[in-house]
C-alpha cells in the first residue's frame, strides 16, 4: 500500500468514512475529526510508518508537520521518513 493509501485508510477509519470519501484535498476538519481524533490519527500514523511526529495539541500549527490536508500529511510523512531512517 502506498503512503497515500495508508494515510487515507487511517484518516477514513478515524472519521468513520469509506476511504473513497477521503481525498488528498480533504481537511481533517471537513471530515469531522476533532482534536482528540487528531491526536489519535497522529498516533496511528507514527505506528504505521514507524516515525515520530512532532506534534503538540496545544499548538497544532507550531510544528513543521503540516496537518492541514491529507496531501500535506503525506508530504510530511515522506519527509520524516527520510529524516528518521
Amino acid at each position: 500500500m502506498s503512503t497515500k493509501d495508508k494515510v487515507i485508510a487511517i484518516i477514513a477509519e478515524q472519521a468513520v468514512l469509506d476511504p473513497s470519501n477521503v481525498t488528498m484535498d480533504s481537511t481533517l476538519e471537513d471530515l469531522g475529526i476533532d482534536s482528540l481524533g487528531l491526536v489519535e490519527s497522529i498516533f496511528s500514523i507514527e505506528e504505521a510508518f514507524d516515525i515520530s511526529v512532532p506534534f503538540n495539541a496545544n499548538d497544532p500549527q507550531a510544528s513543521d508537520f503540516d496537518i492541514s490536508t491529507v496531501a500535506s500529511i503525506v508530504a510530511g510523512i515522506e519527509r520524516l521518513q527520510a529524516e528518521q531512517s
Partner: protein
Amino acid sequence: MKRVVITGAGTINALGHDVPSTLAAMRAGVCGIGALELRDVERLSIQIGGQVRGFEAEGRYNRQQMSLYDRFTQFTLAAAKEAIDQSGLTFSGELAAKSGVVLGTAGGGVSTWDDNYRSVYEDGKNRVHPFVVPKLMNNAAASHVSMEHNLKGPSFTVSTACASSNHAMAQAFSMVRSGMAPAMVTGGSESMLCFGGVKAWEGLRVMSRDACRPFSANRNGMVQGEGAGVFVFEEFEHARARGADILCEIAGFAMSSDASDIVMPSKNGASRAMSGALADAGINRDEVGYINAHGTGTAANDKTECAAVADVFGPHADKLMISSTKSMHGHLIGGTGAVELLACIMALRDGVIAPTIGYEEPDPECALDVVPNEAREARIKVAISNAFAFGGMNAVLALRAT
C-alpha cells in the same frame, strides 16, 4: 450548620519540604520545574517536571514502613505530620472516634505499579513482594495517616483526576460543617513522576517540553509535578475554645459535572462550580479578591477558565487577581488543589498573592490580571480555589480571612 476553619497545614512539593519554604518560594516566584531525574528518562519525549528533590525516605521511615509506603504515601505522611503538629491537636477519645481523613489522589501508588510491572514484564520475574497491593492502593495514604494519628472516624480516598484534592477537601468540609466530625485531616497527594507515569501523559500530546506558562499567549502545555498538601479542618468553636491559631475559614464549596467531553473543558461546568461555591458560602462576587486558577498552561484550559471567570464575575473579573502556581510547582494532578490551597491561605493571611511565573505574552483570550511573574502585596478577604478535572468533574472551594 457549623463554621469550619483551617488550623494546620503541611506540604511537600517541588518548591519546598514544608509550608514555610513553599510559601517563601511562591512569594519569590521560584520555579521548581527542572530536568527529570528518573530511570529511562532518555526514552521520554517530555523530560521536565516539578520533582521533589532531596527527600530521603530512608531515615524518616523504618524498613517495615518502607516496604508499605509508596512515594505518594511518604509524601502524605510528611505533610500530614506538619499539619497536625501545627494544629496542636492530639486525637484521642471522642475526638479520635469522630475525626477522620479524606484525601485525594488520581493514581495512588503509580511507581509501585511501574516498578512491579517492570519486574514481571521486562525482567521476567514471576514473583512480586507480598505488599504490592497494600502499597499501591489509592487509599493507602489515607489509611496510614489514620493509623499514624489515631483518626478513627470517616476516612476514604477520592479520585477525580486533577480535582481529587478539591473534591476530598469538599467532603471533609461538609462533614465538619454538618457536625458529623469535629475535625478532619484532608488534602491530597500524587507521585507520578516515574517512567510509566510520564509516558502515559506524553501520549495525550498536551505536555510542554520546556515550561508551564499559564495564560501566556505562547503557552504550550502542562508540566507534571509531585508532592502532597494536607490540612486540618476544624469546627470553629472547637478551635476557638482551645485557642488554636486559625489560618482561615472555609466558607463554602461547589461541585459540578460538565457531562460533555472526557478531556475538553467546559465553560459552563467551570462557571457553575465557581458561582455555586459563592452561593454556598454566601459570598457576593465582588468580595472575591483572588482566584487560585486551575491554570494548567494548556491552550484549552486557560482560555476556558478565563471565559468562565468573566461570565461568573462580570465587570469584577477585571478587578480581581487570578494566578496559577502550577507555573512554579507543576501540576500535581490529584494533589494539586491541596498544594494550591496554600497560595489562598498566603493571600488571606499574609496579604501576598502568588504570581503566575513564566508569563511572557498577553493572550487576548486570557485578559485578566494574572499577577504575572512577581508576587504582589494585597489585602483581600475572600479567595476561591479552582480545580477542573479530565472527565469534566469540577470542584471549587471558597475561603474567607478570619
